[in-house]
């Protein structure tokens, strides 16, 4: 699997994703600077976490209009798998590749902790190595992760099996106590209608090596490698 990681000014998880991808795929990803308008043909594009363009205007708003993201969007429409993590998820909603928006956390505080998640669908190239309903743990670290979409959008996400991850407790139960940011319906990650674009707030790359304290995210990268093996 050949992957590309898009690097914006202010990205700070690009190296972590680079290491996680290299470990899973056996070859390092191509790192692509935000000013590029073309880059090699790849099997996967990752928009990493961080604070692209200093979160100016709205998180992800500036990155959504950067030169490279026009090319990312074009490839997404052709079916290339796109993974947006944290700020990358915010960029995907700002481009319109994913519906809804990530608002300020309901408690108005930056939240940084290890969070339990329930895998809600395994019908994707991203989550094929998890078991349906599996409870996993990944770090979260964000100020604006409060997912909002209107009722019709939410219904479509549920009906189409496009909610990839929900926040939960260690036993897999959702509810307000397990919801770290006020997200509607406890949503932690969603897919587009074609199921080739995934955005999630948790950081799989930060739990992809036992040395990092957990491997809850490793299966995501290993699953991608298996699904996209060429």
């Amino acid at each position, binding site marked *: 699997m050949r992957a590309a990681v898009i690097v914006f000014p202010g990205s700070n998880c690009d190296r972590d994703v680079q290491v996680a991808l290299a470990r899973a795929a056996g070859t390092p990803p191509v790192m692509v600077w935000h000013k590029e308008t073309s880059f090699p043909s790849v099997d996967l594009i990752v928009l990493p976490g961080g604070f692209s363009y200093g979160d100016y205007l709205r998180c992800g708003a500036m990155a959504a209009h950067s030169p490279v993201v026009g090319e990312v969007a074009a490839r997404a429409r052709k079916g290339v798998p796109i993974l947006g993590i944290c700020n990358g998820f915010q960029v995907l909603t700002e481009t319109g590749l994913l519906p*809804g*928006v990530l608002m300020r956390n309901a408690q108005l505080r930056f939240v940084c902790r290890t969070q339990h998640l329930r895998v809600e669908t395994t019908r994707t190239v991203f989550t094929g190595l998890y078991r349906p309903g599996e409870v996993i743990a990944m770090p979260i670290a964000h100020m604006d992760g409060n997912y909002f979409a209107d009722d019709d959008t939410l219904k479509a996400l549920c009906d189409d099996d496009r909610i990839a991850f929900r926040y939960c407790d260690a036993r897999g139960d959702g509810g307000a106590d397990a919801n770290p940011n*006020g997200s509607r319906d406890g949503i932690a990650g969603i897919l587009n209608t074609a199921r080739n674009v995934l955005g999630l707030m948790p950081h799989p790359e930060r739990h992809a090596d036992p040395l990092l304290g957990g491997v809850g995210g490793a299966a995501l990268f290993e699953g991608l490698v298996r699904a996209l093996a060429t």
Partner: protein
Amino acid sequence: MTLKSGVLDPQGKAVRHALGALGVDGVGDVRQGKFIEIDLAESDPERARESVEDMCKRLLANTVIEDYVIEIGG
């Protein structure tokens, strides 16, 4: 730009609580937003408004959650 009605505004809510803590009476709902000032070369007010409308839709506002109001000054 302000959040649409129906979209929970936790920052506005926090400001309302803070005003209450200061002893300010009679404060109902508080909505927090953004104010952006733009200098334009265009001198025709109608064309200026159209241009800003386009900017709002494409970048300045996220119309999923935000409403915007445009005022043209002299």
